[in-house]
């Protein structure tokens, strides 16, 4: 818990030259130090697809550079529309262009699309089933800037919106496959974006993205981790660690949050008496975890136990991302110890 703002952080003062973690760049990467990455997979993939598909246009609200859409803008300057820092307008203008037969790809941060522009997405876009693709950076806890930039409840909000497809990709490999699938899909889509140098994880598992499909990435007897987004990366790292201690963890990756692949989730949860852990980069309220729980309840499927790795129902703190991931249980070490603890219960 944070102290009162009238109490000085004495422990930070007079601490000599001890280096301290700082919030640092907005551009904080989620990649580990030695992890392979790819630069701006979204921007490059969309720019290449637009070469062949004249319907594609790009719009941003003063965040092209920070959502990798600047790559598209550089490749297709005449098909990029700068809407200014005006997220409501961004969504309305996209709706207008979609009505005239274009396929607008709009980018901003997830907090601003969900919190500020929700009504405009809901009525101008989703209710009309318009072909608008909304791609948003800084999902969940991917910046240390504090609540103004941490989109901890975007999925909860967007799950409540009829017609909207929701994608939470794990890595660069998946983004490269998801973008063409989203182009081919007719209707509104919300995709959480990982930007900048994005980790490459799933290629090593021979993974292929299919819209609407959950995929078992590794099998295991003791626990089933159901995850989306960057938490699949953490789940896979945790599974490797757990293996060393003789714990056999399966990982079911669910990149499409809506519509949810209930059949695959139910089939996996019916197998054996495993501990089911849902891990998501989102508040514990209204995200993948609660979606899976409701699916299980509705079908009378009872795993050995059900647990969630998710953000608390709180406004999160500001700080360095690695500090915050550890504090809120997202680091690989914290995922491993949580699962071990639950298995020992």
């Amino acid at each position, binding site marked *: 818990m944070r102290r009162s703002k009238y109490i000085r952080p004495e422990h930070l003062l007079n601490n000599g030259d001890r280096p301290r973690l700082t919030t640092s760049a907005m551009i904080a990467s989620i990649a580990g130090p030695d992890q392979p990455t790819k630069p701006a997979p979204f921007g490059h993939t969309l720019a290449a697809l637009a070469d062949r598909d004249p319907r594609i246009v790009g719009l941003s609200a003063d965040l092209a550079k920070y959502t990798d859409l600047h790559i598209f803008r550089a490749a297709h300057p005449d098909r990029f529309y700068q809407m200014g820092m005006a997220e409501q307008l961004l969504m309305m203008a996209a709706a207008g262009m979609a009505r005239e037969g274009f396929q607008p790809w709009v980018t901003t941060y997830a907090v601003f699309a969900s919190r500020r522009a929700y009504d405009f997405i809901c009525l101008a876009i989703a209710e009309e089933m318009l072909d608008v693709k909304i791609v948003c950076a800084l999902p969940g806890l991917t910046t240390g800037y504090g609540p103004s*930039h941490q989109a901890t409840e975007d999925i909860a909000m967007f799950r409540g919106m009829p017609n909207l497809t929701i994608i939470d990709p794990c890595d660069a490999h998946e983004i490269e496959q998801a973008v063409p699938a989203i182009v081919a899909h007719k209707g509104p889509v919300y995709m959480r974006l990982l930007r900048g140098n994005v980790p490459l994880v799933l290629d090593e598992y021979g993974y292929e993205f299919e819209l609407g499909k959950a995929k078992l990435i590794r099998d295991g007897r003791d626990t089933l981790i159901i995850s989306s987004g960057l938490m699949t990366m953490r789940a896979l790292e945790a599974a490797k660690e757990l293996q060393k201690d003789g714990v056999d963890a399966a990982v079911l990756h669910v990149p499409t949050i809506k519509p949810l692949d209930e059949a695959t989730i139910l089939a996996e949860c019916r197998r054996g008496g495993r501990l089911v852990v849902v891990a998501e980069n989102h508040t514990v309220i209204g995200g993948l975890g609660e979606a899976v729980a409701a699916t299980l309840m509705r079908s009378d499927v009872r795993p050995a136990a059900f647990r969630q790795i998710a953000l608390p129902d709180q406004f999160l703190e*500001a*700080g360095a991302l690695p500090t915050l991931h550890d504090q809120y249980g997202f680091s690989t070490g914290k995922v491993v110890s949580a699962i071990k603890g639950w298995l020992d219960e």
Partner: protein
Amino acid sequence: MTEIGHNVSLSERARRIRRNALRMGEVQGQGYIAQALGVADVLAVSYFHATNYRPQDPEWEGRDRFLLSIGHYAIALYAALIEAKIIPEDELGTYGMDDSRLPMSGMAAYTPGMEITGGSLGHGLGIAVGMSLALKRKGSKSFVYNLFSDGELDEGSTWEAAMSAGSYKLDNLIGIVDVNQMQADGPSLGVMNFEPLVPKFEAFGWFVQRVDGNDVDALVKAFDAARHHEGAQPRMIICDTKMAKGVPFLEARERNHFLRVEPHEWAEALKIIDAGAVA
């Protein structure tokens, strides 16, 4: 006006604010330094000429409210709050650190003297409308200032607030917009042409002045005129500022919304700022 250090000139205040900001910037190695250098003169005049406050009692009921909507400008406001002795100077080195009271994005819950949480841009002027209405209801003589950015001129919410301030004739509200000609995607007018600003705000019912925001004397006159204006209307001071003002080699950088500064350049920048020091 606040009775602290009237022997120190406003330009010297501005210089010290720039110095504080550079020292904080060095902690992170990069960041919103250009904004802080650019808006330092506006903050010097705000905090050492135009605003009433008590450094030891940041929530004193009789204070003027100074709302920073631009969360990322926190480094600039911290620099001024340190100079105003609302924040102790020795905390400067904790800027953006875990557990610091000086997070990178300004938040009311973290920092003494920080009236609102900024960062989701376009909130400030609307909150200022509400506070101005409330202060009038309480019979208070305090002013509400809102410092916002030219990027925030793009947001619809800013203009909703501007229209209501005019409609309510909020003569206790002073808007200050930092027109630094920069936004996240590049120069402001290339992102969205919000000009002409003076007739726009006038049409919304405001008393409008446009000044060189790096000219301390012009700012003093503008703040005085805003405070003493007779008309029953809100007051807007449009400040044209230069990003990175005072450090020529940083002024010359083109993409300076989020400035990267090489380790050896900090000392160089501080030297340039210190050269203007008044003993």
